[in-house]
C-alpha cells in the first residue's frame, strides 16, 4: 500500500480525541487501585483499634504524609513519562532529596534516643508484615497504572514502570497507614520505604515486557 493511501485511510475516522486523556487515565487508575486496596485493608486487616486517639497524634499524619509525597512525585513523573519522549524530570531529584531528608530525621531520632530503646524505634513490632503488606496493597494500583500506561505511549519503559510502581507503593503504604500501629519515624523511614521500593522495582522489571506498545 502506498503511504498516501494509508494517510487517506487514517484521516477518515473521527479525529477528535478526549482532551487530557493522560491525566484522566492515570487518575482513574489511582482511584481504582486505592479503592481496591482500601477494601482489602478494611476487610482483612481492619482499621487500627485506637484510630480515634491516633488522629490527634502528629506522627500519624506524618506516617501518612510520607507515602503521599512519594505518590505525588510519582504522578508528576508519570504524567510526563506516559507521553512519547517524556522524561521523569525533576521528580526524581525531589524524591531523592525527600528520602534523604527522611533518612536524616530518622537517624537523628535514633541517635537522640537512649541506647536501650534504639532497636525498638527502628524495628517496632511489625517490621516484616509492614513491608509485605504495603507491597501487596500496592498491587491493585500497579496493575491499574500499567493498564492505563498501555493505552498511552511511554517511550522510556523502565522509568515509566518504576514510576508506576512508586505510585502504587505510595498508595499501598498510605492505605496501610490506617491499620498500622507503629508510631516512630525510623520505622517509617525503613520499612515503609522498603515496602514502596518493592513495587517500584517490580514495575521497572516488568515494564519492558508489559508496557511495550505498538
Amino acid at each position, binding site marked *: 500500500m502506498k*503511504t498516501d493511501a494509508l*494517510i487517506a*485511510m487514517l484521516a*477518515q475516522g*473521527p*479525529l477528535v480525541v478526549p482532551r487530557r486523556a493522560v491525566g484522566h487515565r492515570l487518575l482513574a487508575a489511582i482511584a481504582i487501585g486505592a479503592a481496591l486496596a482500601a477494601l482489602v485493608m478494611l476487610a482483612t486487616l481492619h482499621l487500627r483499634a485506637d484510630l480515634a486517639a491516633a488522629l490527634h497524634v502528629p506522627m500519624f499524619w506524618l506516617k501518612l504524609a510520607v507515602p503521599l509525597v512519594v505518590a505525588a512525585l510519582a504522578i508528576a513523573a508519570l504524567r510526563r513519562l506516559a*507521553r*512519547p519522549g517524556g522524561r521523569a524530570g525533576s521528580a526524581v531529584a525531589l524524591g531523592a532529596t525527600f528520602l534523604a531528608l527522611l533518612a536524616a530525621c530518622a537517624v537523628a531520632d535514633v541517635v537522640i534516643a537512649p541506647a536501650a530503646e534504639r532497636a525498638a524505634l527502628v524495628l517496632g513490632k511489625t517490621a516484616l508484615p509492614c513491608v509485605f503488606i504495603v507491597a501487596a496493597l500496592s498491587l491493585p494500583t500497579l496493575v491499574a497504572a500499567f493498564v492505563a500506561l498501555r493505552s498511552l505511549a511511554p*517511550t522510556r519503559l523502565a522509568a515509566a514502570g518504576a514510576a508506576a510502581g512508586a505510585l502504587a507503593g505510595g498508595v499501598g503504604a498510605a492505605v496501610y497507614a490506617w491499620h498500622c500501629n507503629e508510631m516512630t519515624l525510623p520505622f517509617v523511614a525503613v520499612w515503609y520505604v522498603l515496602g514502596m521500593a518493592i513495587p517500584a522495582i517490580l514495575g521497572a522489571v516488568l515494564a519492558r515486557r508489559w508496557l511495550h506498545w505498538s
Partner: protein
Amino acid sequence: MEDVEEALRAALLLALAGDKAAYVAFLTRSGAHLRAYFRRRLVTFPNDVEDLVQETLLAVHNRRHTFEPAARLLPWLYAIARYKLVDLLRAQSPRQAVEIPLDDDGIGELIPADASPAESQRDLAKLLDTLPDRYRLPIVLVKLEGRSVAEAARATGMSEPAVKVGIHRGLKKLALLASTRR
C-alpha cells in the same frame, strides 16, 4: 526548524479539532520528515524505510491522544519514530546490542525532508484481504477506487449507513492489524 514545528503543530491541532484536510497535510508532511529520518538510519535496510514510515504514522494516529497541545510537537513525533526504529532493529538483531544514542531525537536533521515514498514492502492490501466483506468492500470501493458512498452502496447491496460504518470499523481493524503485525 521553527517553521516546521509551528506548521506541523498548527496542522495537528486543527486535525484534532476535526479538520480532515489538515490531518492529511499533517501526516503527509510528517511522513516526509520521517522518511528522511529513517533513510539516514537504515542505510543497510533501505527496504524497511517505508514500512517504518507507515508504522510510525499509524502509531502517531493511534496515540494522538498523548500529544499535549501546549508541548512541542517535533520531540513527540521523533520520540515515536525512534521507538519504532528501536523495535525494528531489536526484531532484526535480537542478540545484538542496538546502539542508538538516547538523545538522538533527529530534530537536527529535519531538512531536507524526503517526500517521495517508495511502495511499502509489507503490503497493507494483504491485510485488507483478511477483513470480512462488510468492511473490505466499502474500503476498497470508496477509499481505494474513489467511488462515492452511494455508488458503493449500490454495488454491494449494502445501505449507505452500513457502508460508512463498514469503512469506519474496517479502518480501525486495519489499523489494529497493521500495528500488531510485526
